[in-house]
C-alpha cells in the first residue's frame, strides 16, 4: 500500500463558492447567501459537496501521474460525512492499494485543518498500457 500525502486546497471563501456555482451549474443559495442558508436551518453558508469531491478527484489524478503505466478511471464514489463551512481549510490525502496488477483502488479523505473528516472517497482505475 502506498501513502498519498495530504495536500491543502486552501480555505473555503465566498468568492470560491461563487466560482464553483458557475462552474458546476449548482446555484443553490445555501452555498451563496448566509441568510438563505440560515433560513434553511444551516449554521451558515456551506460549500458544495461536489466542490470537495472535485478536490478529491484532483488529488487522485495527481497521485496517479506518479505511477508507471497508463490507467483509466472507471469508478469514483463519495460519501459526504460532514458539511464544510466558510473559513475552513480543505486537505486531501489517502492511500493506493494495488489489487491484481491491472486494477488499482485509491482511498482518499478530505479533512479540515482539525483533521475532521468531511468526505471519504474511493477511486478505481484499470490499467491500459505499461
Amino acid at each position: 500500500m502506498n501513502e498519498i500525502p495530504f495536500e491543502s486546497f486552501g480555505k473555503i471563501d465566498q468568492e470560491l463558492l461563487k466560482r464553483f456555482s458557475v462552474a458546476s451549474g449548482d446555484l443553490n443559495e445555501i452555498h451563496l447567501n448566509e441568510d438563505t442558508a440560515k433560513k434553511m436551518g444551516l449554521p451558515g453558508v456551506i460549500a458544495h459537496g461536489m466542490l470537495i469531491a472535485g478536490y478529491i478527484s484532483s488529488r487522485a489524478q495527481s497521485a496517479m501521474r506518479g505511477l508507471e503505466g497508463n490507467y483509466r478511471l472507471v469508478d469514483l464514489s463519495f460519501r459526504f460525512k460532514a458539511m464544510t463551512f466558510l473559513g475552513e481549510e480543505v486537505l486531501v490525502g489517502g492511500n493506493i492499494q494495488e489489487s491484481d496488477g491491472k486494477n488499482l483502488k485509491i482511498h482518499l479523505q478530505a479533512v479540515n485543518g482539525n483533521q475532521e473528516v468531511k468526505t471519504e472517497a474511493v477511486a478505481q482505475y484499470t490499467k491500459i498500457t505499461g
Partner: protein
Amino acid sequence: MTLQGFIGIKSSPVTLKVASEDRAFFGQVVQESEPSDLSPVFFTKYRKGELEILDKMQVPLKSILHGEQTYHYEPAAWESFDSIEFDSSLESVLEKKGGSMVILIVLTQMRNAANQEVLVNAKSTFIVRNG
C-alpha cells in the same frame, strides 16, 4: 401519492453543448494540476434531471442532504465529445426511523449526443429529513 409511488419516474432528456472553456474553468476551480485534463467531477454539470424529479415529488430542497455520489465512467467518457444528452430516474425510496428519514436514490445516464454512446452512469443518494 406516497413517495414510493414515484419510483421509476424519469426526467425529460436534455442535451447541452460542452464548451472547452467550461471544462477548463471547472478544472481550474477544483485545482486539477494538469490544465488539459478533464476533471472526473466535471460531469456533475449534467445532473439537473435530479432537480426535475425532486420537484415532481415535491420534496423541499431545504429538507435534502446529499449523502453519497458515485460515477461509473465508460471508456467514451475520456474521448472527445461536443454535447452531452442526459436524463435521470428515481430508482428507490427507503423509509427509515418511522418515516422521519427517507433515502432516495436517483440514477442519471450521460451520453455523447452525437452517437448516443454512454459516457457516465451516476448514482446520487439523497437523505430527506421529515419534520
